[in-house]
């Protein structure tokens, strides 16, 4: 693996501030405005807030990965990487960089929101861990969607990938219930970690294959 590519990808995304600060700000705006529509002092079960966070992060990571490949595709950078057989590395690093600059900050913003809701620190910490893991899964799938629809606008590919993420949302929902009931989370957490490893090690290869076909 060429670490220069990691540095370059990190630098490129960091300089396109709108691409990574934008989604985080949108997420912040959503979670600030959400309590305004709901009386947070009432006895609303915490599941509502946590489910709202899962769905919001899903949609915001979709927004954050919208330009993941299109910019490099349009200016010929992907072509250059493909010529030297570096597409897989680039895809892997792009996903990693988007996770670091978008996925993880989103998880921490959500964590602060959860803490403010009088949810125990233990459950909040588990939610943070779940968000960090699930955001990597979301970014992988949305990157796949963007790769699929690179020449045709991003909506179609993203719509195709959302159904694949519904099982992840179901697992997150089950985890929330188990955590609030004080049940063991080892099984659910292992499943989530397993899916993350599988997705993060398999999807970049599929994406690089798709990108190569776009470059032909």
């Amino acid at each position, binding site marked *: 693996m060429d670490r*220069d590519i990691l540095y*370059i990808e990190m*630098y*490129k995304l960091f*300089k*396109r501030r709108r691409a990574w600060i934008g989604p985080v700000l949108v997420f912040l705006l959503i979670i600030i405005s959400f309590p305004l529509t709901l009386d947070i002092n009432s006895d609303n079960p915490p599941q509502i807030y946590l489910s709202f966070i899962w769905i919001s992060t899903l949609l915001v990571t979709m927004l954050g990965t919208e330009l993941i490949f299109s*910019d490099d595709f*349009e*200016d*010929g*950078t992907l*072509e*250059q990487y*493909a*010529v*030297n057989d570096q597409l897989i590395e680039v895809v892997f690093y792009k996903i990693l960089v988007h996770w670091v600059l978008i996925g993880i900050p989103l998880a921490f913003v959500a964590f602060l929101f959860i803490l403010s809701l009088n949810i125990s620190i233990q459950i909040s910490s588990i939610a943070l861990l779940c968000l960090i893991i699930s955001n990597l899964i979301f970014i992988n799938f949305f990157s796949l969607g963007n790769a699929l629809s690179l020449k045709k606008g991003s909506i179609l590919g993203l719509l195709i990938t959302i159904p694949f993420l519904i099982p992840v949302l179901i697992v997150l929902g089950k985890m929330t219930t188990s955590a609030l009931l004080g049940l063991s989370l080892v099984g659910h957490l292992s499943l989530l970690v397993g899916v993350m490893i599988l997705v993060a090690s398999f999807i970049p290869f599929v994406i690089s294959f798709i990108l*190569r076909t776009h*470059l*032909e």
Partner: protein
Amino acid sequence: MKLIEAKNISYKINDRNILNNISFVIDFGELVKISGDNGSGKTTLLKIIIGLTQQTKGELINHNEDKVCFLGHKNNLKNYLSIRENLMIQGLKLDSFNLDLLEKFNLRRHIDNSVGTLSFGQQKKLSLIRVLNSVENILILDEPFVGLDQKSKEFLKDFMEAEVKKNKTIIFTSHIDFKDDYREIQING
């Protein structure tokens, strides 16, 4: 020593023949110009040579195992970054060689301006700096002279001829003639 052997290469998209039974051999250290009318398949042939596109018929044997320097139609530049940053992400240092190149191309005074503010010709010159710095032994350039002023065209021609004398291989598409020996592959789509 053979670099590329193409035997009866054809390429077809939706029943439209782009390339039709093309055969050639390119040796290491050659300067090769691929010429032909617009739409005759010059870019497609380059893409087949570098392995981005697969021919629909025929055989292409590539004896090269090293990295190649490829400059396509697109300029590999980031509009939201400055010239300095674009050079940096291409792994180029702002040493005296590159500063001289920027001076020669009248880009040095724009070094901290974003590339999006440069003209097409200026962007083309900037993208060529990567080629002029290349350490690879094989350079594949798609229409490298397009958008350049006369002075820059002469500079690039001299560079290419000098590189070939150092035993590098350059394959390019263009309508420009060269002073020294070069080989031409004429294609008619």
